[in-house]
């Protein structure tokens, strides 16, 4: 066992941090709101900057322009980006679709898309969830019917992050309605400018336009945009998700929030400076520090296992549950310490810490829900991690 980073890893973290010092506006505290044009422009600039430095797709093999970086380096990259609440870490293109195309894509798909992703020139979004298919994703109903050289797509995707900024979507569609649910699904690449696509904004509870419903009405998708085999989309579309489930973003956001809170409490000018000697407050802040450190180690454990060539499914679920829970907890406690001020909206002149804790807490509601609810994660932990028997279905 060894609980320290290699010099190479520490160097990389420092370099990335220095890059973000320059790239982020003075006083930046995030999180970015990509529906704002200035934040979107910042997202694009950072993406380009990361691409120029070879970091954007460093996780990719060298033959595709990557650096074959280790899972631990990739975790450090994700952690540092999240810790600074920096926009521009494009998971959809670099971490989901890219590796999927390398494994399952055709030569022409790889030529067409991988370079554009690597250069940070294209924004992808992920069309998986549907209005009637959330945790039970395999029940998805959006239909694609082959008609000559095109699939004709009809249906709707929902909770699609960045659909309003995306050039392309990779989506799961039902291509064989008569097969068992998991066996009649295919993965398609769709140009978001195709006629018949409508992007309907959904405003989240924090008041931000972060995701969308995307409606497909007789959308023509070239047959060549099928990734992998027809009706093999469940396997193609799930492979990479397994690698992507991690709590590192949440652990990093939680650490950033706790540090802000601690320095606020320590500041003699703050409204709550009188509580810094209160044993209960000190104890609660120390307990949060402990939880965050635990969540962080769980994420490093996932990265270490990946580095050993394993696919740590249950461990990834554990890190996601721990990360999302502690993030909400830190924000709850910050709001509690701010007392009456804790619930002032970010625009309020009287708000402390710029109202950011309140806003982040509203955002953090999504953590235990998205990318597989924490209840689904616990099923995975119990069944894949502990080998408990599955309940018979209906």
């Amino acid at each position, binding site marked *: *066992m*060894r*609980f*320290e*980073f290699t010099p190479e890893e520490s160097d990389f973290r420092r370099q990335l941090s220095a890059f973000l010092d320059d790239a982020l506006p003075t006083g930046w505290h995030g999180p970015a709101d990509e529906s704002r044009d200035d934040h979107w422009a910042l997202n694009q600039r950072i993406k380009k900057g990361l691409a120029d430095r070879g970091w954007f797709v460093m996780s990719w093999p060298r033959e595709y322009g990557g650096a074959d970086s280790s899972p*631990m380096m990739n975790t450090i990259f994700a952690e540092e980006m999240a810790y600074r609440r920096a926009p521009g870490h494009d998971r959809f293109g670099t971490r989901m679709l890219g590796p999927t195309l390398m494994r399952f894509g055709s030569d022409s798909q790889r030529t067409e898309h991988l370079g554009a992703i690597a250069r940070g020139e294209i924004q992808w979004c992920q069309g998986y969830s549907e209005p009637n298919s959330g945790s039970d994703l395999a029940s998805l109903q959006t239909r694609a019917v082959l008609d000559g050289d095109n699939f004709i797509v009809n249906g709707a995707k929902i909770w699609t992050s960045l659909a309003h900024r995306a050039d392309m979507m990779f989506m799961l569609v039902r291509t064989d309605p008569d097969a068992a649910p998991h066996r009649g699904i295919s993965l398609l690449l769709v140009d978001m400018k195709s006629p018949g696509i409508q992007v309907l904004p959904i405003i989240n509870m924090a008041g931000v336009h972060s995701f969308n419903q995307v409606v497909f009405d007789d959308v023509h998708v070239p047959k060549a945009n099928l990734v992998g085999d027809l009706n093999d989309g469940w396997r193609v579309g799930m492979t990479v998700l397994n690698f992507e489930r991690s709590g590192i973003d949440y652990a990093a956001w939680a650490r950033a929030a706790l540090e802000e809170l*601690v320095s606020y*409490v*320590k500041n003699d000018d703050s409204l709550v400076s009188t509580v*810094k000697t209160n*044993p209960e407050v*000190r*104890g*609660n*802040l*120390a*307990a949060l*520090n*402990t*939880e965050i*450190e*635990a*969540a962080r*180690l*769980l994420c*490093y*454990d996932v*990265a*270490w*296992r990946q580095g*050993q060539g394993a696919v740590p499914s*249950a*461990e990834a679920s*554990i890190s996601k*549950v*721990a990360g999302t829970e502690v993030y909400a907890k830190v924000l709850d406690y910050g709001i509690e310490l701010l007392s009456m001020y804790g619930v002032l909206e970010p625009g309020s002149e009287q708000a402390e810490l710029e109202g950011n804790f309140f806003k982040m807490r509203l955002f953090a509601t999504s953590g235990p829900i998205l990318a597989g609810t924490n*209840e689904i*994660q*616990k*099923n995975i*932990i*119990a*069944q894949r*991690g*502990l*080998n*408990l*028997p*599955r*309940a*018979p279905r209906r």
Partner: protein
Amino acid sequence: MDFGLTQTQELLRTSAREFLADRSGPATVRAVADGDAEAAERLWKDVVELGWPALTVPEQHGGAGLSFSDLAVLLEELGASLAPVPIAESAITARILDRFGPDAIKAELLPQIAEGDVLITPAVVGRDASWDARNTAVVANRTGSGLVITGETRFVSFANQATHALTLVNTDDDQLALVVIPIWKSAGVEQTPMDHASGVPVSTLTFNEVETLASSIVITGSEAVAATEELVAAGSVARAAQLAGLARAVVDSTVEYTTGRKQFGQPVGSFQAIQHHLAEMAIAAKQVNHLAHAAAWSFSGDGYSVERAAQAKIAASEKITDLCWTAHQCHGAIGFTWEHDLHLYTRRAMAWKTDFGDAAFHRAILASAMGL
């Protein structure tokens, strides 16, 4: 970052599992908990033969020179099997002698510790049950040849097996001193068993004008405080590692039980309510495990990380009793019986929640380290 075991650690784990399954099963654990001193002695003799007391003693003093991180692997197994052996106690007191003691003490005692002829147990808690290193009610009068010690320490683990106690005393010239006091059949030393839920022997030690040589003083003044703080921190990490092992064992046995137990025609472990209980237990066990090993790693060189040590015991103290209560819920009525072994784990977890400082104690230390 490396969460895997080194070859040495792998070997240590495998041999510990084999030995403990054979010699420290539930019958032994129950016998020692019932006060069977001979059973405890027998087990300790076997452990000495395996060389475990020598593991972390430096090679120059006759030990194997392994790190605290290596030791944590063994402690995890001791926790998982509830083995009533004072390896943690011996290793942390030896560490303090090695780190803070004069050469003469090291040369005299460390080889004997490695051989199993000397066993030193920490005795730094008084009537007030405080683990604060500045706090001692034991007094010592200086004489020409050494010290005369009077006072009481409580919650001393394995005092009945130990040859010496490592104790913080207040000298008559108003100085703190960390002293190795011979307690094995020593005149003026009285032991009273405390009937402690841990299932290991825990006693009150009373010193009535116990005479010790000046050479038994490990260190004095503010450094004695630092040494005692490190002793408590090392003890808390050792307990965290043991509790991590205990948690793993409880998760494993609960999985086994709920997989075999059938109701409504299916294993109760297939019900989501039970699966979520177990998933939460698995998360807590892993959290404590990682924090404990990260903390133990920080002790591997000179010094240690105050933050890591506190985090380990905070998490262990906060999470492991809850984990045990959830395990009882998953076991249903059978886990409520005296006959079933689960309560042995629960008792140990409850007892060690406070040993070497409870969560509140360590939260205060961590808060200070955070600059609060």
